[in-house]
């Protein structure tokens, strides 16, 4: 490998981490508050919802699909959990289960469209996105908030409480992260999902039940995203219709930033975490600097394009063109 080739490989794999660090140092020098422990904890805490949504997305993208309805799962999960408590006096732990099941149901609807009807994941989840948005508007009289002031403290503490001195939100994020790491990177199910994503025909011939796996993938992704919705309603003590949408593009961005760091450009759990933290750090930093929040989107766009261009440039290195036979 030539020096240039090595440099490029290094850049494409770790270049993003360098950018990450660069921004970190930049914010640290620009704002005194940035490096405060409480601010750093804030970044972690404030991005748990994005993290769980992005993890679900990682699973879907690894299987070769995309889920545009992830925001719907977030909305429905949180919404129906508080509806269960408010209108049906369901105990709060059970309400969480209700929320997750509703999220899973959103995923099952996607699976039905994709696996049974053969609609492409893009179109199927786009459909779910529109339908889900419409349902929310119908039942909240055009998108009015659903407040729930008498929320059980147990439920509320999902977002505001602490356990062993660690904010519950961070703990929840860590648990989901761990589960996904084991699922996608260390279990044979993850291996199969990667195989399906890379080459579905070969996975099928190897005897993998591709339909069953795709089915599960969308269900698990939505169920996970609904956890984000539950945390969101717990923190705000209300449900804001259509709020989940704001996580969709960030989740996709985080997944692809993460994939660009993988030697084979595959979506992976560690990379997604880095992507989420980066996006969280940038918005926090810009905020502290008093800069226009809208800069963040532009920065995110630049970083995404940059990371992917680097990853692709590595594929153009000599000796990696085409393929032998």
């Amino acid at each position, binding site marked *: 490998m030539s020096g240039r080739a090595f440099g490029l490989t290094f850049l494409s794999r770790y270049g993003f981490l360098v950018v990450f660090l660069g921004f970190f140092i930049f914010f640290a020098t620009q704002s005194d508050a940035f490096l405060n422990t409480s601010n750093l904890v804030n970044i972690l805490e404030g991005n748990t919802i994005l993290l769980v949504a992005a993890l679900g997305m990682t699973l879907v993208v690894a299987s070769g699909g995309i889920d545009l309805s992830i925001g719907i799962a977030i909305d429905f999960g949180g919404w129906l959990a508080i509806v269960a408590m408010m209108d049906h006096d369901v105990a709060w732990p059970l309400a969480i289960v209700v929320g997750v099941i509703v999220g899973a149901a959103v995923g099952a609807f996607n699976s039905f469209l994709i696996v049974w009807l053969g609609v492409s994941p893009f179109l199927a989840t786009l459909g779910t996105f529109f339908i889900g948005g419409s349902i929310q508007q119908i039942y909240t009289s055009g998108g009015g908030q659903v407040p729930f002031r008498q929320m059980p403290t147990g439920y509320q503490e999902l977002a505001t409480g602490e356990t062993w001195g660690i904010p519950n939100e961070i703990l929840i994020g860590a648990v989901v992260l761990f589960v996904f790491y084991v699922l996608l990177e260390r279990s044979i199910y993850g291996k199969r999902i990667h195989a399906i994503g890379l080459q579905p025909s070969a996975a099928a*011939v*190897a005897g993998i039940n591709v339909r069953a796996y795709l089915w599960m993938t969308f269900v698990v992704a939505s169920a996970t995203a609904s956890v984000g919705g539950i945390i969101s309603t717990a923190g705000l003590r209300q449900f804001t219709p259509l709020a989940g949408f704001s996580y969709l593009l960030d989740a996709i961005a985080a997944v692809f930033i993460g994939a660009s760091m993988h030697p084979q450009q595959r979506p992976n759990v560690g990379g997604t975490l880095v992507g989420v933290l980066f996006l969280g750090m940038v918005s926090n930093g810009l905020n502290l600097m008093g800069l226009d929040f809208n800069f963040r989107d532009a920065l995110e766009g630049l970083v995404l394009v940059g990371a992917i261009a680097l990853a692709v440039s590595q594929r153009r290195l000599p000796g990696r063109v085409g393929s032998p036979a």
Partner: protein
Amino acid sequence: MATTADSNSNALVMSDISKAFPGVQALDNANLVVADREIHGLVGENGAGKSTIIKVLAGIYEADHGSVWVANEQLEQLTPQSVHERGVRFIHQELSLVPYFNVTESVFMAQEKQGVFGLATRKMRRQAEDFLANILGAEIDGRTLIRDLTVAQQKLVQIARALIDGQARLVVFDEPTAVLGAADINTLFGNIRELRNSGISIVYVSHYLSEITEICNRVTVFRNGVDVDTIHLGEEQVNGAGNVVSGAANGSVRQAEIIKLMVGREITDMYPESQATPANTVLEVDGLSDGIRFVDASFSVRAGEIVGLTGIIGSGREALVDSIYGQRRVSKGTLAVAGKPIKLRSPAQAVSAGLVLVPRDRRNDGLVLDMSVADNVNVATLEMVSSKLGWHRRQQAAQRADQLVEQLDVRPRRSDTIVRFLSGGNQQKVVLARWLTTDSKVFVLDQPTTGVDVGARSEIYALVAQLAAGGAGVLMSSNDLAEVLGICDRVLVMVRGRIVAERETSGLALDELVALTTGSALEGVEGVAS
């Protein structure tokens, strides 16, 4: 070893070509000299560097050093365009066609014809169909999508694409016959000879040494990235009438010589002794029809038996294999594995019933190209390398892969290589390795030795014989009739969607089997292709 363009009449001189990939020296000062109006063979073990030198010529890979003359003109910078302009055409080993293009679009890709009103679609379609029918002997509708063609038909489309503009001066065939049936191979050979007679030089890469000795004038043998020798094979001469008179009567002697150069040792018994002591029936196919490609297929395979299945393009053999594995819908008929009927719905069901497939299209169906050798070897049997709950035991997985890589002599011997970068024959070994240590009852092998070198082929035959001896039933679908006769105990012959003959292979002559596959030996069944 010719190293310079000493003769004026060379169509191609490649001298001192080196090319390294990370961890592999694919070419190491290799030479290839092709004279004018010559059919020049190129042989060598899997991974010897044949495809690599061809890709260097094609401008796909940039050589680390070396020089190239085409028609006595030195080319400084090889790009796909510059070699194309000089009339060099390639029929690459892998099918590089777009699945959702139709035949016409594929033949004319990047060489489209303009009419007065935009693309001359009709004209192109007519030309493509004519070329395929008249020159290559295949009736294919120009509007058919590539994905709906058989692999063999796709090969013909690929050939048509290279030759249709009539500008070819030097044509390189990289293992063209691997997917073709005997009759189609004869047609192809006729075409190759005609090309040569019209003044075009040919480079012909193949693992079938009988083909090499049959049509080549000279052959260059590669080993580990070096050309070890170039041998004359007795000039073929063109007599006054334009017919070819072959001068090489001593084909098999020459083949043994080539093999020795290729692998550095002699291979005496290509095929293991048959030791079939067939026991109970493990695969029972009864009245299977898909309503389109094959009808009423009935046969059985017993434990310990190797049964061949053969037939030319369009005989329905491929479709039948796909259906047996649950990849194609059937309209009628039943299938039972070890006495238990199974529903033909998905490969997953077939696998769990104990029926496994080594698919013919290894690059699409056999391998996840971007995964490592270890992952590909283990992907079908991940339970064997995991805890009960599904925790992937990587070390165990790597060990299992290492063992299989060793056993099958996959090169390079590293189970962490990405499969995409293995040579064709080594990729095939990886697919085979996958099922070897499973206790499956029926192995369906579809063209298992396509693109596999002689040495490895004899190893694969030994493995297949071992599988059978171990109590599995093997159904081997193949268009290589010598192989079918050599390894199978029985053979089923398909013609036009029907199994028209079933024969014991002992005592069956090759000619007789060829006649069966073309249908000419049978009353009441019309001959298909000639």
